[in-house]
């Protein structure tokens, strides 16, 4: 009996140990410049997030270009992948050779836990000069010195304006100009209901999340030691005070009713495309959507307005993008690096993808390529991308939690349900710092 108990206990111990260490082994990265043509033909797997027909075609074309350059490598793709699937595959020890993420929110986790391999040895072996990337990109592709992903195309954010609704006015450059123009262009019904909004100022509007609007005032998320800077940086208070003043001018309930009557952001019913909103913050991709679904819309683009006392910020905006890397445990890291290198540093490949998807190319040589399709409205976003005032949300642990915590505070403040802004921001700091301590011990 005792022997049997011992056996059972040993079995449970083995099971426990197996669970505790599941996925913790680190696959050896092979720092190399990639595979060589004299190698045997190899097939690699790649997971990506594209799902729309035009995106899939553009990406297949890019892979066809890769096949021409690396004929011994065949790429098998899986579409519509999200971050949690990448994480589970790495944990299960059966990841793809290359994986792509549409959001930069997971980069800190990817790098810290080693879900994606450090690419610095590969970059060094391939002698790739990292100055081909704008400086801001380094902030969202590495964490604590570990560059575990590379940028594959980028997004930059600016102001779209409907020329007809602007009634001859020029796009605003400062927050006070934006507020004045919003009031001038807003059209209300007799009962005060909003028919056309000059600009919808609150944080719940589609792309008005704090990561995007924070660049209007140069707001900082973190202190050098990694703790929250939300309460201590007066820029957040400046932004939220400005937003609240304008929300109050509309009336929160009326603005919410107007917002909830709008169509889906990603459909042809987008309120800017439908002429319901005169000015809106949005990414460069909106140009392609307007071209597809609202051909007759007469519109222009400009950098987002900035705080009146910080005119030097004008011209910049928020930047983020798609990232791609080699998960740990990838079976063909050398060939995988060939693909990552091609998609992220080959100027023609980056330009072709940018032209097809109408995203901003993520290298400076691609930005200057004569092959890059440009028009005045798209050029605005290329300029924002290259502007030194542009900023991103640096890779950080609990990135989504931090953004959510600030946005919850913004909603409470805008709605008038929390009247003390200082106390609200101090509470945001506390929550973010407590969570940081929980997840990282810092």
């Amino acid at each position: 009996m005792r022997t049997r108990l011992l056996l059972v206990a040993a079995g449970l111990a083995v099971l426990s140990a197996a669970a505790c260490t599941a996925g913790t082994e680190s696959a050896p990265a092979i720092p190399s410049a990639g595979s060589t043509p004299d190698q045997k033909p190899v097939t690699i797997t790649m997971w990506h997030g594209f799902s729309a027909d035009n995106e899939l075609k553009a990406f297949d074309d890019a892979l066809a270009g890769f096949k021409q350059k690396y004929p011994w490598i065949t790429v098998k793709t899986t579409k519509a992948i999200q971050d949690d699937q990448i994480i589970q595959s790495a944990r299960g020890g059966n990841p793809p050779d290359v994986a792509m993420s549409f959001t930069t929110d997971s980069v800190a986790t990817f790098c810290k836990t080693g879900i994606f391999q450090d690419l610095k040895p590969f970059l060094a072996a391939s002698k790739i000069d990292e100055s081909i990337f704008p400086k801001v990109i380094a902030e969202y592709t590495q964490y604590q010195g570990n560059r575990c992903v590379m940028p594959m195309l980028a997004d930059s954010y600016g102001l779209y304006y409907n020329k007809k609704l602007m009634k001859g006015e020029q796009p605003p450059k400062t927050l006070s100009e934006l507020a004045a123009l919003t009031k001038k262009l807003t059209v209300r019904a007799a009962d005060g209901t909003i028919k056309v909004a000059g600009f919808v100022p609150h944080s719940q509007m589609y792309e008005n999340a704090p990561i995007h609007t924070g660049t209007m005032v140069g707001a900082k998320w973190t202190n050098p030691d990694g703790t929250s800077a939300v309460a201590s940086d007066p820029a957040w208070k400046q932004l939220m005070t400005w937003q609240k003043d304008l929300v109050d001018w509309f009336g929160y309930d009326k603005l919410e009713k107007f917002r909830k009557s709008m169509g889906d952001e990603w459909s042809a019913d987008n309120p800017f495309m439908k002429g319901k909103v005169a000015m809106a913050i949005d990414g460069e991709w909106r140009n392609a959507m307007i071209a597809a679904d609202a051909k007759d819309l007469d519109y222009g683009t400009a950098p987002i307005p900035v705080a009146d006392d910080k005119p030097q910020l004008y011209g910049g905006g928020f930047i983020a993008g798609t990232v791609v890397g080699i998960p740990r445990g990838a079976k063909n890291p050398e060939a995988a690096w060939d693909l990552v290198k091609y998609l992220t540093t080959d100027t023609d490949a980056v330009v072709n993808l940018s032209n097809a998807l109408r995203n901003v190319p993520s290298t400076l040589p691609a930005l200057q390529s004569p092959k890059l399709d440009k028009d005045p409205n798209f050029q605005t976003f290329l300029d924002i991308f290259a502007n030194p005032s542009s900023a991103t949300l640096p890779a950080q642990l609990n990135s989504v939690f931090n953004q959510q915590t600030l946005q919850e505070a913004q909603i409470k403040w805008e709605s008038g349900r929390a009247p003390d802004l200082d106390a609200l921001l101090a509470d945001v700091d506390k929550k973010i710092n407590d969570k940081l301590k929980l997840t990282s011990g810092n």
Partner: protein
Amino acid sequence: MATTTLGRRGEAVPARLKGRHRVNLTALLYLSPWLVGFTVFFVYPLIATVYFSFQRYDLFTLEPVGLLNYKYFFQDGAAWTSIRNTLWLVVVMVPLRLLFALGVAQLVTKLKAGVGFFRTIFYLPSLVPLVAGTLGFVYLLNPGTGPVPTILSALGLPSPDWFGDPSWSKPGLTLLALWSVGDLMVIFLAALLDVPKQLYEAASLDGAGAWQQFYHVTLPVIRPVLTFAAVTGVIQTLQYFTQAMVAARVASGSTDSAGSVFTPGYPDQSTLTFPELLFQQGFRDFAMGYACVLALLLFAVSMIFTLVLLRQFRGLDEEAV
């Protein structure tokens, strides 16, 4: 006469004992599929959850942190908000669902014609998938385009922003729960139809009115069904997730895109339930150690309610004997 044989170490083993031993082994063999399943899917996960609750665990790396995860629970405002919300739903939504289902079932039993039609009409909403039903409800009550606020407005009546105002969001979810009460209604209907008619006749002859008949005849007979519905309702509500998540996402206008942050519990965490918080901590923030603390708490509370259920049934069985 008992025969004896020699054991492994040479001791004498009675044949009767040996036979019992064989019977035990056979029983174990028959039980083994369940034992394996119970160990793999319950005992081991439970032990692992306790173990991980003392670790900082992000699915890849483990670091012992003592009681840190438990301490964080006491200072986590979202945890207490989610507990309050979940308790609100248990205290308000569950009794209302029971009362409404019982009322509808009672009505259907009194119908003289069209019983099948009305039974189907009341039952149908419970067949609608949770996500679809919630989407439909949020659309119906949308203050911008929803038919309900439009009609109320046309009548000159005010309409709240059901899923956008923190004081109306939980009542909104309760309305949704009442709409899909058909599953309970069918159970109650069966129980009501099982009440012996002669009991009502006897009560009527004794001069009992409708309320007295309900209180003294109907309720005692259907009590086991009511108890079952109440306790399973409480356990289901402790695990309330899908409707709250979908309603908050749709009402917030959040789209599942890069740069767009969804705030579960929208607005102001008023619909944040305990399972939602657990999911967020474990699978969004990868604070698995802390998620294990929350899971253990949920397990303990659910166990308490299960024990209450078992005790109630045992009490009823003894009464019946």
